[in-house]
């Protein structure tokens, strides 16, 4: 896919940060509102897909290697599983234990009133971040590679 017209590229550049922020918001508020790692990650990845469509897959591949994105995806998955493993290192060990609950600093507070308190839910937001990272990288690399493959096929004809 070659790059599209200047109008499209400008609009994409303008709207990209907003979509990005919205996606990150959905990831970060996964434990309070409908959404979470996958949904927010899909939103961010659609912003990145928009970049691929507007600027062309070759432009993107010049800037970031597909191998590095795959690495990022692995990191997301490892974070998720390690969070599950950490549950084994605390008292009363269970796999997937919510081990950060009951501390006042990191998502550890217990919900007492009806207000939307983001600093709650323990390990769930952390897992949402991990899943979000994995989904962003995974969907991005899928779209990128598929777009590049179809470009290569057009070039062959």
């Amino acid at each position: 896919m070659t790059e599209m017209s200047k109008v499209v590229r400008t609009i994409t550049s303008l709207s990209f940060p907003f979509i990005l922020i919205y996606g990150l918001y959905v990831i970060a508020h996964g434990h309070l509102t409908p959404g979470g790692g996958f949904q927010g990650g899909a939103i961010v990845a659609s912003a990145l897909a928009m970049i691929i469509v507007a600027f062309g897959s070759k432009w993107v591949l010049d800037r970031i290697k597909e191998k590095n994105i795959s690495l990022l995806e692995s990191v997301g998955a490892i974070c998720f599983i390690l969070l599950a493993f950490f549950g084994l290192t605390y008292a009363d060990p269970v796999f997937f234990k919510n081990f950060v609950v009951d501390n006042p600093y990191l998502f550890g507070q217990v919900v007492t009133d009806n207000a939307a308190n983001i600093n709650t839910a323990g390990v769930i937001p952390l897992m949402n971040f991990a899943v979000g990272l994995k989904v962003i990288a995974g969907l991005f690399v899928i779209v990128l590679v598929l777009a590049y493959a179809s470009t290569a096929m057009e070039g062959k004809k």
Partner: protein
Amino acid sequence: MSIESIMGDLLVHAPAMIIAIPLLGAFLTPIISRINGTLRNVFVISIMGLTSLFVGVLANDIFTSRVIKTYVFGGSQELTSPVVRILLEIDALSMFMAMIVLIVAFVAVIYSWGFMKEYTGLDKYYTLVLLMTAGMFGMVLTGDLFNFFVFLEITSIASCALIAFWTTKGESIEAAFKYIVISAIGALFVLFAIAILYGQYNALNIATLASVMKYTFLDKVALVLLVGALAMKAGIVPMHMWLPDSYGRAPASVTLILVGATQASLYGVFRVCFTLYGKSLSLTNNILGLEDGFPLALGTSLGILVVLLAIVTMLVGVFMALKQSDFKRLIGFAAVAEIGYMMLGLGVALLSIEPTGLSGSGLMALKGGIFHIFNDALDIGLMFLVAGAVYWATKERSLDKLGGLARNMKYTSIFFVIGLFAVAGMPPFNGFASKLLIYESVFQISPILSIVAILSSIMLLAVFVKVFHSVFLGPAIPKFKNVKEAPISLLVAMIIISVLIVFIGIFPEMFLNNIVGPATDALVNYSGYIDAVVLGGM
């Protein structure tokens, strides 16, 4: 910390670790393979070794004490009723299947070291292999229907990507596409059936569902969808066509794991028939929906169908295998025929089930069928490994062009002979023991079934004698004058499987009493499975 407390901790967390360690290894592999290829191979093998430690500890406990173990994720281990936790439930049959999965995955990883050396993209290959292993472990260990679906999909996606690993070959891609279409549709119908059950009983846990199963109209629909879809994933004729395609075109190491994946689906069929619908098997329903005609028990009507499908599976498998000229595709059809034996055991057990339970020849047939799952994984797996070694050495898969390889590949041809006798059910190898169980117990139900099974076994022998003749015997062909023996890792993989084949073949009764027997008892005794999770039993 004393040894006992460490062993106790290992045992408590073993069910989760069996799934989690391959999963962790899968995602660590891309990072480690950036350092060094050899380090990655060692890492993957050590991950499998660590997993086998947990499998060993858990299997030792389950087969000696014959208890059903549960593991609850993320909460206290005490179960409350109704069960709303995500849990693993491991009885002897699950453990039996987990052992098969472990053996095929471990051997495949060792085999891959030499077999896949010359190809690129191995970080993804090993990631997918470990992911697939985790998926298969999940399928056999889970106590939750929805998790079964999730692990089924993980296994299908990973194995599809592995079948298409040689993307330079059009046939591999075609086989992978056919496989993913079949498995996507199968898995979606499984999910539909799960949704039907969930909508009725508001539960996803297999034990809970089995305890409240009322066998209504919708339950019948769910049973049909589950059995149909899982049978397709297991490769029952006439839904087997994807199986020779994908077995024939995947790399040999992947094919070995695919055998395990197919049998994990077969485990699903066994579990659905005997545990989920265990209480309903002796209930009567009218065939064709007639008000007063043909009242048959569910077990009988399902059993007749399964037996018919099993007969067709055996016959079509061997007849198609006889005419193949592609080495691995031929073994794929032989694998179809072997699946028929397990289904025959299942079908005869369903036919002879009574309200009081299963006993006598029906139980023996079921034992034979379950025993044969293990033997089939080893025998057919060894055949595929030999085919892979021949392909590694000659880069040729057509039986018409191969010949005279026994001169250069002595050890490989010895392993082929062992596999040939084992597949064909010749004493003293393991295939004979399980097939003898099936023949003799099926003979009590209907002699014709037994005759067909023996005939199909004889034809399997004929099929593999043809392969032996055209690949290993005959004059040396100039093209293959300088063919080398397979490298050491391929030989080690084949030795492991051969030793298991001979060991089980010489000591079948010990294996039957200590491993197959508890597995069969656990499968038949559905109330034990329910009691382990649902408080207050049924």
